[in-house]
């Protein structure tokens, strides 16, 4: 046990991350044993569909939680992005490429809005989320005249954007997701922005008194989150085609769950992108597995809740031991 913990690789990723990874693999094996038709590519592809958009949401919210804040407007904002851009595409005849950019832009705008209120006007993040969640739903609904929007099918001329998700059976989305996750990890751990975001999550006043413009960096975390939410919207419609106004909050909990499961601390200052990625995969695999076993989504929610409690409790205990 100790030996494993002292292994440099394990040390770097964090022991709990390794445990989580084992849980992920174990879960897959168990599902395969329990349900013979779980083996094979189709299931994995289906689980990945769910993992993509959730993953981008989770990555985004990781930055926000790292600052000690919270954003549970991500789900509705994702829907708002997909709806506004999709409406531009289907009703105003904009090219797909432009629509994709609009999608990211809408996410970005909400990120700026949230970040500005939190960082510069010191409105508690909880309140800002609550407000922008309502606003996102309302804006999407007004913009689309309460209509759901269906993005073009893969076979049509405009369907090329779906190749971002997969080409044939090649999960292109996975490569993009991993690439983005690596970029996020680099931003968080290797750049000035990431250093300041994590530091201000741990002790904002100390960072401010070091002569750092904390407001700028705090806002940046929300902006990064916004961009990632915009990307999440693209992968959502890439996999599921249709979005409805007035919804999206059902994905908040799962995105935040994926993030904290992976070891990001709600108190701020500690974040792990690798953990978030594993957390998201666990949730996605769980939802696929639960379906395959013929259970309803309810079990997935309950089990996700329990796993998060256990994972976070383990982290709490570990930290208490350390101090």
């Amino acid at each position, binding site marked *: 046990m100790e030996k494993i913990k002292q292994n440099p690789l394990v040390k770097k990723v964090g022991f709990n991350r390794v445990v989580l990874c084992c849980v992920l693999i174990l879960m897959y094996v168990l599902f395969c044993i329990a349900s013979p038709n779980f083996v094979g590519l189709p299931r994995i592809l289906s689980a990945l569909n769910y993992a993509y958009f959730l993953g981008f949401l989770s990555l985004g919210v990781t930055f926000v939680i790292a600052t000690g804040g919270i954003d549970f407007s991500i789900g509705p904002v994702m829907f708002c992005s997909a709806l506004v851009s999709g409406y531009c595409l289907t009703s105003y005849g904009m090219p797909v490429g432009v629509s994709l950019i609009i999608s990211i832009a809408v996410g970005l705008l909400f990120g700026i809005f949230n970040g500005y209120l939190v960082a510069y006007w010191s409105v508690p993040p909880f309140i800002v989320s609550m407000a922008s969640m309502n606003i996102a739903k309302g804006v999407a609904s007004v913009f689309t005249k309460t209509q759901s929007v269906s993005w073009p099918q893969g076979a049509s001329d405009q369907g090329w954007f779906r190749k971002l998700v997969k080409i044939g059976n090649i999960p292109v989305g996975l490569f993009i997701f991993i690439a983005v996750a690596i970029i996020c990890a680099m931003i968080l751990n290797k*750049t000035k922005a990431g250093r300041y975001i994590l530091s201000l999550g741990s002790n904002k006043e100390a960072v401010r008194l070091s002569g750092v413009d904390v407001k700028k960096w705090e806002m940046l975390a929300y902006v990064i989150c916004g961009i990632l939410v915009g990307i999440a919207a693209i992968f959502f419609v890439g996999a599921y085609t249709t979005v409805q106004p007035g919804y999206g909050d059902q994905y908040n909990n799962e995105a935040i769950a994926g993030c904290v499961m992976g070891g990001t601390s709600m108190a701020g200052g500690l974040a792990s992108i690798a953990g978030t990625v594993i957390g998201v995969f666990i949730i996605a695999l769980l939802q696929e597995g639960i379906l395959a076993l013929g259970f309803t989504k309810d079990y997935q929610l309950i089990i996700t809740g329990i796993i998060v409690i256990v994972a976070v409790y383990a982290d709490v205990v570990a930290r208490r031991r350390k101090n």
Partner: protein
Amino acid sequence: MGEVILTMKDIDKSFPGVHALDHVSFEVQKGEVHALMGENGAGKSTLMKVLTGIYTKDSGSIIFEGKEVEFHNAREAQDAGVVIVHQELNMLGHLTVAQNIFIGREFKKGIKIDDKKMNEEAKKLFDKLNIDIDPTETMSNLTVGKQQMCEIAKAISHDAKVIVFDEPSAALTEAEIQELFKIINDLRKQNLGIVYISHRMDEIKVITDRVTVMRDGTYVGTLITKDCTKDDIINMMVGRVIYEDPKSKSMVAPDAPVVLKVEHLNAGKMVQDVSFELRKGEILGFSGLMGAGRTETARAIFGADPKQSGKIYVNGKEVTINSPEDAVKCGIGYLSEDRKRYGIVVQKTVAENSTMAFLENFVKGLFIDKKAEKDIAQKYVDSLATKTPSVDQLVVNLSGGNQQKVVIAKWLVRDCDILIFDEPTRGIDVGAKNEIYKLMNKLAEEGKSIIMISSEMTEILRMSDRIVVMCEGKKTGEIGIEEAKQETIMNMATREIK
């Protein structure tokens, strides 16, 4: 002095990896003020926490009023008559004074809490102690000193037989300390046993009867206060000899240029029309009582708090400082009195904290150059003699003095020429204090200019080349070290108080 009321015998306590108390014995008599001294980490607080049941001991025995006792929590200890006045204020800011005093043992009428009776009782208590505080006032509206008084009143109201004061004077003004001593003397007359923990040598001499010294979790010895000297106690605490001499003359060349000039600075109530100059290579002491506005002045200069008016010149040029960012660009660094809150980022490593103020210098392309970062951090760990296993250590694991050094390193990395040290040695033990002093002198010699805010008179007299005294937000005096005497400074510091 009379019979022994409390004896702690062979107390042993270990935490994972640390032997916090190694068979420590300690006793208090009725009608005695017994000082408990030792460097930080010597085990004083741990011992008291074992006494009041916050920690459970591994072995040993506690005999209270002739009976062996074991308290399981603070409540049980309180009920038995062993009360502790904590170092950090334990106030509930949103509740009233009376509600604070009687928290946990409210008077009740049926299921209703009888606030009226609590107010009356609190009033009686204050009258007895001769303190003027309105029991219905909300706690957070009181000054720190008054809050401390409430804490003491609360302890006394427990019908205590033994009261432990854990560094009670740290937040008090000189006048309030006198007030406190009067109360302690009263309590002594009532035959209570009192444990007094403090770092301040002067107080120990004045108020205590005996001194017990601890070092590294062990018992060193007990002395009768009036039979020993300060140096005796210090020697026992550190196991080596330290001399504390005041500086006799300014070390600054008379023609040294002015690096920082502040004119008519106004910021809120606590900073009114403050002007002063700071020369190159000078240590400028800021003296005054608690709440005199020294920290506020420093924070206003540094841009941490907004200011209403005033001009600041750095190296002769007027500068606008609206945020710490601006200040840092002007080469000003600020070491806060509250390291944990304002100085360090505990979850980051020594290296990461060291470059916090000047990260842009360690960015190569898009990324942080971690090697350069570690190199520079290592350089300052060496030159400041910071005790840390490596620069990758999280600062949370360092001791107070070493954390302070990391904060200093942060500003040295930035190459700040003007450093504001706000209570640089608060909560740091004697040995580490001396190192910080040496370091400050060295920095001044190298041509850095230092503003040192301190509430400790000995520190001011020992370190400063010149002293600015403040009172109630105004500058009330400025004096060279040559003429400075404790009495003169005290006089200036109380000038505004009617």
